[in-house]
């Protein structure tokens, strides 16, 4: 068979789209596979921006429009091997299966990691039961790629506003957008107690940028595709890749296997939307399916590295909500406009809390200032009957609710892993990804410690009632108050399942994201992260994809 493309990229989210731009601009012909639909970009004329997304709660929040469908392409979950083959079948940390991937549904908070986050073992030391490793790259080496990633996506932010931020070589490409009213309330209270809230670095246009319009604050941001392309979803890199004339995008095309021969990949097997199987050959393969589908594909392809799928991390989310005596209109604006980093810092109080719990240290995560915005989700929480409309009018769970969500750092553990479910298959007959996952005591202690501090801020903000919850569900002071929260972490910040490193005996990929087992395969997504940090992974994985794809494009195929 002949080879029509130099490189195949599997997945069109932020990582894959970035790789597509780098490889096609380096002169390689590139084929991008995406299992989901294409609503993002006009393939006939990438210069024109199509508008297909909409502000529709039923379509996005209830009917799985961005995919994957939890019946057609389920995942499974169990807490430990002693819980049987699985406890849950269906939706497990799903990121959209659509052209643009997770970039489409995110509300675009795009923080950088801090210097320390690349060297947790060196700076803070190991923790029993956790498999902590330093990254094979430093912040100083990453900084130019971070700056470039911010320009590619279009990130709005305020340099210098966060006293804990890593150094940066220049300003953000855009100033911050308008602050949401509720965030101003909680930020003022946080400042009063000595915390340092700042405008969230956000991939949403605050000015016209890269030919795309300024955001108009419609409120359908997190979980929705942007109807006007004001969001920094991967439309920009995909468009530039397609405009080189060397890239092709094939949506609704599911790669089922990487073909391997003598320690090298030769191409992929893929399934079209009618279920027919095909083969496509190429000398280089980039895997960018997300940290759950990537290890699944590696395992389905017969790769055998013992570490594939291990160390899966989700952020442990700690929620602290306050019912306010005034309306907060969280449905107006870009979902989250303020964050603070104080809980990421291992200060004296955090050290004391760790010591009390018998741990060397604890680390929290980025805290988002937020408030719920959607009516159907609100309505389902209230009882039926005469109270329904009274509750909807008073709106304690939406229009009077302000919240904090801490994206708590989650330690890697060898026993937390993604593997192939022994019996459950997707609609194509392929075994699905199964997650086995339990929190480390570090996460619980950090959640308790920082959660109580967040409750103090909410009190300072004059909340009439304070509600707390965690995901995954825990017991004790932070026991869930939200019936829908389960043992499956709801965080979409998934990482760690194909870690990169300098030593083939403890990693899946080398320092450039190439599989030790098949070096013409590069992993571009957050699977390679050795540790999770308390920050969302997207900007970091785009920056890493830039760095690693450049090396991959010029290296021998």
């Amino acid at each position, binding site marked *: 068979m002949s080879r029509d493309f130099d490189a195949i990229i599997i997945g069109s989210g932020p990582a894959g789209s970035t790789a597509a731009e780098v490889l096609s601009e380096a002169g390689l012909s590139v084929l991008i596979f995406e299992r989901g639909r294409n609503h993002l970009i006009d393939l006939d004329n990438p210069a024109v921006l199509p*508008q297909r997304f909409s*502000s529709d709660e*039923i379509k996005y929040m*209830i009917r799985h*429009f961005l995919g994957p469908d939890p*019946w057609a392409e389920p995942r499974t979950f169990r807490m430990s091997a002693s819980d049987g083959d699985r406890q849950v079948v269906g939706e497990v940390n799903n990121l959209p299966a659509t052209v643009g991937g997770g970039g489409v549904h995110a509300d675009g908070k795009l923080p950088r990691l801090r210097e320390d986050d690349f060297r947790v073992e060196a700076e803070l030391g190991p923790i029993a039961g956790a498999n902590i490793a330093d990254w094979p790259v430093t912040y100083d080496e990453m900084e130019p790629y971070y700056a470039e990633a911010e320009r590619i996506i279009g990130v709005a932010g305020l340099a210098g506003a966060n006293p804990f931020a890593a150094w940066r070589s220049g300003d953000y490409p855009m100033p911050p957008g308008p602050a949401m009213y509720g965030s101003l309330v909680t930020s003022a209270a946080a400042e009063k107690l000595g915390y340092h809230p700042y405008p969230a670095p956000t991939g949403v246009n605050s000015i016209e940028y890269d030919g795309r319009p300024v955001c108009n604050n419609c409120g359908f941001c997190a979980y929705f595709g942007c109807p006007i392309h004001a969001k920094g979803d991967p439309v920009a890199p995909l468009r530039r890749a397609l405009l080189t004339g060397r890239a092709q995008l094939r949506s609704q095309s599911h790669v089922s296997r990487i073909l391997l021969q003598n320690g090298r990949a030769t191409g992929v097997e893929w399934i079209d939307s009618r279920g027919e199987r095909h083969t496509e050959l190429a000398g280089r393969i980039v895997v960018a399916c997300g940290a759950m589908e990537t290890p699944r594909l590696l395992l389905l392809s017969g790769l055998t590295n013992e570490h594939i799928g291990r160390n899966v991390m989700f952020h442990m989310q700690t929620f602290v909500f306050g019912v306010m005596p005034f309306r907060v209109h969280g449905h107006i604006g870009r979902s989250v406009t303020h964050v603070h980093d104080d809980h990421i810092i291992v200060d004296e109080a955090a050290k004391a809390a760790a010591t009390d719990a018998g741990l060397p240290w604890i680390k929290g995560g980025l805290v988002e200032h937020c408030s719920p915005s959607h009516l159907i989700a609100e309505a389902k929480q209230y009882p*039926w*009957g005469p109270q329904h*409309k009274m509750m909807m*009018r008073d709106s304690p769970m939406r229009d009077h609710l302000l919240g904090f969500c801490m994206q708590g750092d989650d330690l890697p553990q060898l026993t937390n892993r993604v593997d192939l479910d022994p019996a459950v298959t997707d609609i194509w007959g392929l075994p699905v990804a199964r997650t086995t996952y339990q929190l480390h005591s570090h996460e619980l202690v950090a959640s308790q410690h920082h959660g109580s501090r967040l409750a103090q801020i909410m009190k300072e903000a004059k909340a009439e009632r304070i509600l707390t919850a965690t995901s995954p569900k825990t017991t004790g002071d932070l026991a869930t108050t939200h019936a829908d929260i389960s043992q499956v972490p709801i965080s979409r910040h998934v990482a760690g399942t194909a870690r990169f490193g300098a030593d083939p005996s403890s990693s899946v990929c080398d320092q450039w994201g190439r599989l030790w087992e098949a070096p013409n395969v590069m992993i571009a997504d957050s699977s390679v992260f050795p540790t999770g940090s308390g920050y969302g992974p997207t900007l970091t994985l785009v920056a890493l994809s830039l760095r690693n794809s450049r090396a991959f494009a010029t290296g021998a195929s």
Partner: protein
Amino acid sequence: MAAFLTPRQYAILEAMCARLVPADDGAPDGTEMGAVDYIDTLLGAFTFTPPRIWAGGPFSGRFGGEPSFSDFEDLSPAEELAWRTRIEGSNGIPERERLGPVTGLQEIYTRGLAELGEEFPSLDPAAQDDRLQEIGDFTRVVYEHVCEGLYGAPEYGGNRGLAGWHYLNYEGDVQPRGFTDAEVSGA
């Protein structure tokens, strides 16, 4: 003419939705706000072409732009299989039973409404509420759909005359107009 429900089923569901969200001074009951039509459209989604699963986009036309929500999306074969399984049930069809038998929404409604019985609409409101408490599981399913029908986009069959949004002074989908910076940041 309903898409799925028989006139008798329709009447029972009307009585039910009027109790799940009763009328009050400010707004009509759940049935008058379109909940039953939303549910009937979901149950009968495949009697329409394209099926009424995903409304179109980008704009509803309510705040400018060319209206396109009524142009429903086509489904791929896999998407159609998933949604038919969910709505019609697996009915012993092997490709629908990959994850085990699925009771479809149509059957859940047919059974639940039969259990409530034809006399349900003629019971007094207190007796209706007691019945709804008794059959809790079905009531919960219907209530979730009622919430979708009252507060979702009217293109799905519910939210008649935008009644669900109007009584809450909620604007709904405001693209492409959006909100001003002052509306975002002000009290």
